[in-house]
């Protein structure tokens, strides 16, 4: 390709000194070695999945504890967390010496798997999840704008019929358990999550459950 045609003008090339022809090829092996070394280094050191954050709003702290009776909890579920164990009850808490119409509150054990916790929450929050499904279908059929969808979903989560979640932890619960629970709650599209301190009566009940 890049050759200089040396045809023509013959005659006097007999006595001309020829430049030594050396190959134009360079040995690229060291360069390739280096390139692959760097490649291996960067492949091994780079971290692709940047950490994500999960936001959670905590209730504001009061200066003085307000001593009024807690408002009646409609459509609520309370989770009691211990180390790698999770219990729940729905509705209000009735201690043994102040039983409700169904007797004192009994704890139900569940687990962090999809068939445990996720199913419990999906069943109880079916009001929101069913409506959400309907809205998703509308969005897909282009009958609803996605901005309307996010706004209505937020409204739906705040409705009285939507499930509310209280999270109470004992001294042994791990951060992993807590975050797993909050994660499941978010998957179930629950808007109201409140991490609150555990009542002494609840702790007692939890401890008797743990001993079983």
């Amino acid at each position: 390709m890049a050759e200089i045609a040396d045809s023509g003008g013959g005659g006097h090339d007999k006595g001309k000194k020829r430049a030594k022809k050396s190959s134009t090829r360079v040995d690229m092996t060291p360069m390739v070695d280096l390139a692959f070394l760097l490649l291996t280094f960067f492949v091994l050191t780079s971290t692709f999945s940047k950490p994500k954050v999960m936001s959670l709003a905590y209730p504001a702290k009061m200066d003085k504890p307000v001593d009024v009776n807690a408002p009646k909890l409609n459509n609520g579920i309370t989770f009691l967390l211990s180390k790698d164990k999770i219990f729940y009850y729905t509705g209000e808490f009735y201690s043994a010496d102040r039983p409700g119409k169904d007797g004192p509150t009994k704890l139900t054990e569940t687990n962090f798997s999809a068939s445990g916790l996720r199913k419990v929450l999906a069943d109880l929050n079916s009001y929101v999840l069913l409506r959400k499904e309907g809205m998703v279908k509308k969005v897909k059929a282009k009958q609803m704008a996605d901005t309307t969808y996010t706004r209505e979903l937020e409204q739906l989560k705040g409705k009285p019929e939507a499930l509310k979640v209280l999270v109470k932890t004992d001294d042994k619960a791990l951060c992993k358990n807590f975050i797993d629970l909050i994660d499941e709650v978010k998957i179930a599209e629950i808007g109201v999550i409140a991490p609150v301190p555990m009542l002494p009566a609840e702790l007692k009940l939890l401890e008797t459950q743990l001993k079983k």
Partner: protein
Amino acid sequence: MPKIKIPKSSPSIDMTPMVDLAFLLVTFFMLAASFRPSEPVTVETASSVSDKVIPENMIMVTIDPIGKVYFNLTDPEARKEALSNMASLYKVSFNEEQIEKFSLMSTFGCTMKELPAYINLAGEARKEFKTEGVPLDSLDNQLKNWIAYSQAAALNTGKTAYEEAKKKGLSPDANDFKPKFIIRADGKAVYKKAEKVIDVFRELNLNNLSFVTSSEFNPNNPN
């Protein structure tokens, strides 16, 4: 009978395409890699389906498996301001070089008394530094002061950054420049320890907190 001629070919192969490819990949990984500053503690966070990325301007409190508390603030200017306020409050003096070093540091977990010695250490030696973490009990709540001063300082620097972005003709969202409060708790840490840190935030009326998590598959939006 004529002999069959085997065409003589050079034993060396043309390596140019391979080199091209190798360098292309090197360039990609070099640009895509983000180097994290060395942290004094490694934390294994739990996973969640959240897809929010970690914000730029943040105040982060790290809790390691045994419950030691570490503090971090991203903005270098705000770090300087917070440090000078903390120094005058706890009557610890820092020289220019230490302040400069501190502004470029990452997470630290030590008391104000230990801080000058900690800053003077070289990067790797900081990991071996013996400390009890940032104290946060009611008698000596240094974490609370760190958060309070850092928040004030980070709000200021965020405001100037917001004004600058406005001058450039962009239409920035003021909320993006406000510091966010992040808790990075190890999955094996006891929740009560994290709750103590959360209570410190709540005492300062900072109720919107975020937990650092690694990402996992979301069954609701599989995309």
